[in-house]
């Protein structure tokens, strides 16, 4: 008797124990529906790309404020991580974001080597990822992933259009190239030279300079001695600032036509620093503060930070716009990743870059590429003015 009553009691206890997770679990399941979506931004807030990282964050935050931290009817929570500009640090941070924070979407990344370093991790985790800034061609080709979208350009899209413009509108021969000696520089110069020579142009010497060159004067003297018709050049950040300034110091500014990918004349981190020394420079870029689609963003960014946006801030903003477009289409329901992906591929998205359409082969965006010339605007500021638009430039993509 006693044993059976005891076992009855035990059975009830067991039942209660078995039921309790269900009882507590139901409201938890319900809550998961309206729990905020976690979007992480991985960017460089220290190290050589700190200025770009700050701008990228400001751009994305501006976009989130404008939509009241709500996408597809769900609240959005933003997590920001600093990769220090180093691939190993980026890998650590992405692993942590996936495992501990259980993020739903990843965005950001300034430099190409970091984008390539985290590619396998996000691919294996099937994490929807948006590469906002890194341009490496490989991500649209052999390293493309069905989970990685790239709202920004590839090196080819800028180098190729630079080649077209230079051949048609600058000179057909007598130019040379100058670039920072690392992956991005090599890609831009190679893509430029390929298109330019394909058109029939003849290209002179190629000068490479280590990344972070403190003094360009010796190289500038060589340019003066050779007196080329144009220089196609890729330098970014402080290298670009020094180059333009020293060109002006040696009174070569305006005597040799300088053309390059847009980072050379980035409105925010280069033109602001060099001022008048940037005037007359030409670049091909998927971003321009003068682009038609960017006007609302430019005004809002100027109000928020008191300056014109450059590539990194626009990238951050566009990343937010693209994620929002996808989430709105699936009503915030991310569990069906295929539907989310299809929604992104289905229709063009209006962004601050201009019209953007993802290529279904590699999730690489097809973008309008602007030819920007730095001219004085109405207030006398040097301003990247659109002088031509190459519409719907599409990377050759995976070679079959």
């Amino acid at each position, binding site marked *: 008797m006693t044993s059976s009553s005891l076992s009855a009691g035990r059975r009830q206890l067991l039942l209660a124990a078995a039921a309790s997770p269900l009882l507590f679990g139901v409201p938890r399941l319900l809550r998961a529906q309206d729990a905020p979506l976690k979007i992480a931004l991985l960017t460089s807030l*220290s190290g050589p790309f700190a200025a770009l990282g700050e701008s990228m964050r400001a751009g994305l935050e501006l976009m989130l404020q404008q939509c009241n931290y709500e996408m597809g009817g769900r609240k959005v929570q933003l997590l920001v991580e600093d990769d220090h500009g180093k691939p190993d640090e980026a890998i650590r941070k992405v692993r942590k974001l996936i495992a501990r924070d259980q993020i739903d979407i990843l965005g950001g990344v300034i430099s190409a080597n970091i984008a390539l370093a985290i590619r396998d991790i996000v691919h294996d985790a099937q994490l929807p990822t948006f590469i906002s800034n890194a341009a490496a061609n490989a991500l649209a080709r052999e390293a493309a992933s069905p989970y990685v979208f790239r709202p920004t350009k590839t090196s080819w899209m800028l180098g190729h259009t630079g080649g077209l413009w230079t051949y048609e509108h600058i000179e057909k021969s007598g130019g040379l190239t100058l670039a920072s000696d690392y992956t991005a520089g090599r890609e831009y110069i190679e893509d430029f030279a390929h298109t330019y020579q394909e058109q029939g142009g003849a290209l002179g010497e190629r000068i490479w300079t*280590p990344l972070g060159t*403190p*003094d360009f*004067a010796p190289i500038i003297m060589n340019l003066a001695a050779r007196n080329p018709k144009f220089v196609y050049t890729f330098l970014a950040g402080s290298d670009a600032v020094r180059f333009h300034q020293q060109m002006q*110091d*040696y009174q070569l500014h305006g005597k040799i036509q300088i053309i390059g990918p847009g980072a050379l004349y980035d409105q925010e981190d280069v033109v602001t620093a060099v001022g008048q020394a940037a005037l007359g420079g030409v670049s091909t870029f998927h971003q321009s503060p003068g682009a038609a689609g960017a006007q609302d963003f430019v005004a809002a960014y100027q109000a928020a930070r008191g300056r014109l946006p450059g590539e990194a801030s626009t990238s951050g903003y566009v990343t937010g716009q693209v994620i929002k477009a996808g989430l709105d289409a699936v009503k915030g329901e991310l569990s069906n990743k295929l539907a989310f992906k299809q929604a992104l591929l289905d229709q063009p998205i209006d962004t601050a870059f201009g019209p953007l359409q993802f290529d279904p082969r590699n999730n690489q965006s097809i973008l309008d590429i602007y030819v920007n010339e730095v001219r004085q605007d109405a207030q006398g500021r040097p301003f990247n003015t659109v002088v031509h638009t190459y519409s719907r430039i599409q990377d050759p993509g995976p070679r079959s």
Partner: protein
Amino acid sequence: MSYFLLQVLNALSFSALLMLAGLGLSLVLSMMNFINLTHGSFFLLGGYIGVQWLASGAPWWLAFPAAFVLCALTGWLLNQFPFRQFYQRPHLMQVLLTYGLSVIFADLMRWGFSADTLSPVLPQALRGGVWILGLPFPTYRLFLIVAGLALALLFWLLLDRTLWGAAIRACVQDAQIVETLGLDSRRLFAIGMALSTGLAGLGGALGAGMLSVYPGLDEEILLLALLVVVVGGLNSVRGTLLCALILGFVSTFARMWVPSFANAATLAAMLGMLLIWPRGLGGPVARQV
């Protein structure tokens, strides 16, 4: 011909910059036997002070003394705490302390002066160029060369030709003997540290016109300064100056002839010099660092 002359002037201006970066560090590293890895931070701080001063509309020529004084003051404060507590500690401790501080300073400056690349608004007198044998040369670089030479001369006289210079060198050898002679070694070191950080700040303010200022410049300059001081030979101001001159010329002409290998060529020259003169260009030293 004029092309070569101008490249020589380019090299001289880069040497002047190296000299400005190295002088202060040589005082702390070789005279005071203290490994100060925050040296680059003071260079950057001086650069920011210069840029802010020149943009503020105050008399432009005061920008350089202001950078010197403010950085010297900061250096003096840091000497009171925590540098002073580490002068007698092993070098590894000094490296850990000053490296950690340099990371903190980098963050503070990024917070205070933004992460953007900033360029100074140069006064009319220093802008523009002069024509040398038919080719333009920036006025600012001539100014830099003259300022660098003047400072180097002053510094060399101070350390090699004055009693104060002798006293500070004696302090490193044997502080106790110096104390028994009635000299306050703590005060001497405090002045030495302030002078060193002040010089770094002055170098930064002067160099900003050529390099611009941005986060990360601190590390680049620290590396160059260490190169100049170590290859130049510890305990020797003349060695530091000579080394700045040689490295300035090597890297400028490497950039002119083989730009892709400019860094490799500079480091190869350094390696060569260290192999030939293991104790540095400045001759024998009594002590190892």
